[in-house]
């Protein structure tokens, strides 16, 4: 009879976490930052069609770093959850908090029960309306959930980007062009290369819009804002 190998739970969790961290660090970074009218999402993404940032609901957006197929699945599940809730109850009952909780549960369950953890780190952001504050949730591969203030960074060398932004970020929400320049600068410094507008994926949750607040900024828009 073959003896099963014994691996201590601590060791197993550590290995899994290491594995997931490595996978996530391989990618490029994404920044979510508050600005005057809502939240700005900036991703270093050379692909124009494979999105890292996307709309979930009226004032909620999603960003995923790590393995594309895995965060794409999470994104779709989030949209289904939000649309179902909005259809069953009312549009205003769909909240970023409940969505972030769902993601946290899912990621946590997969991390502890499956052989392979998900190599993803995700952001759920909600632009506050009627004087409610914005909400930025960062959810890690193991389901841990962090309620961030002012800005959040996931993927790639996220800690380096975070450190850079911490020094520079203004005390109150900046204008859109200031925020975007700040984000691009931080991404450029950690990536050690100049980023062209074509290589950026930029979107905003703009609370001044009516209905759905999510809007992608085109390459032209980004170029114009960066050169202003």
């Amino acid at each position, binding site marked *: 009879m073959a003896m099963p190998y014994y691996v201590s739970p601590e060791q197993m969790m550590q290995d899994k976490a290491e594995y997931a961290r490595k996978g996530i660090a391989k990618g490029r970074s994404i920044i979510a930052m508050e600005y005057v009218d809502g939240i700005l999402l900036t991703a270093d993404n050379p692909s124009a*069609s494979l*999105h890292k940032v*996307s*709309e*979930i609901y009226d004032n909620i957006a999603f960003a995923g770093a790590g393995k594309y197929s*895995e965060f794409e*699945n*999470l994104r*779709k*599940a*989030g*949209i*289904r*959850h939000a*649309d*179902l809730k*909005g*259809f*069953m109850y009312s549009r205003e009952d769909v909240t970023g908090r409940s969505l972030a909780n*769902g993601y946290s*549960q*899912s990621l946590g*369950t*997969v991390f502890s029960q499956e052989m392979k953890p998900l190599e993803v780190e995700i952001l759920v952001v909600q632009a506050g309306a009627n004087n409610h504050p914005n909400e930025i949730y960062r959810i890690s591969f193991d389901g841990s959930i962090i309620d961030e203030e002012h800005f959040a960074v996931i993927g790639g060398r996220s800690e380096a980007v975070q450190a850079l932004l911490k020094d520079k970020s203004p005390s109150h929400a900046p204008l859109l062009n200031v925020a975007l320049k700040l984000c691009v600068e931080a991404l450029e410094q950690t990536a050690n290369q100049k980023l062209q507008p074509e290589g950026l994926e930029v979107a905003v949750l703009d609370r001044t819009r009516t209905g*759905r607040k999510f809007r992608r900024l085109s390459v032209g828009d980004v170029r114009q804002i960066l050169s202003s």
Partner: protein
Amino acid sequence: MKLPYLPDHDDSSFFDFLTKHYPGLTPGGHGQLPAVEQTRSVGPMAVPQATTVLAIKYQAGVVIAGDRRATEGFQIADRRIEKVFKIDEWSAMAIAGAAGPCIEMAKLFQTELEHYEKLEGMVLSCEGKANKLGQMVKANLPMVFQGLVVMPLYVGYDVKREEGRIFKYDITGGRYEESDYHAIGSGGKDARNTMREHFRKNLSEAEALKLALLSLYNAADDDVGTGGPDLIRGIYPTAKFVTAQGIADVGDDQLKAVYDDMITARRSRET
């Protein structure tokens, strides 16, 4: 991948998602079919469709309009009901039939299109939207045998062809495109008669609106199920323009102005 709270599903249709995981929430009410004997004993049914809704093509797109009356037998159930819905940025839908399931289907169709757009990252084609609505009408067929008919009239601006389009349906989900104008509901025939007399190609926006309101007025004149303009309470039909610029509501002031002219002209004929 198993996800708690988020059932495993692999399809871009919200309607299919509901049908599979939450059948009780679909307007068709799947799994709630009446027994066959029971259905047969009802015999040929008089389907209540007390409504007139219509759509007319014009230069820039389509105007879609509907009256505001809801009836229950010989009683008026609601004087201000909305029968014309904006579905997304380029399409609108008007409904005739049982009010509850109708409104539910409009809401479901709105969610369906938004859901697809978010999942796929692009908007469905005008044709695709019209076909999807046909499938939803077909799924409602069991309810038709219980007398709960939902009959939509769908209009969309086809961004690729750069023209407005009108689609009508039958209860089996059959989808037919109309080239110029169409009206459905109990007063549909009366409205179509008016439109047939006055319609021509390339109407201006103002002319199309005037014709739509005239047709509704004539329908209300001959059909008890259709409400006319209520001058005392200030309730006017709903109308929307569907064009390349999106969906635009026609304001009450504009509607009132058209009706005031029409009524003055008619009054002068009576004296």
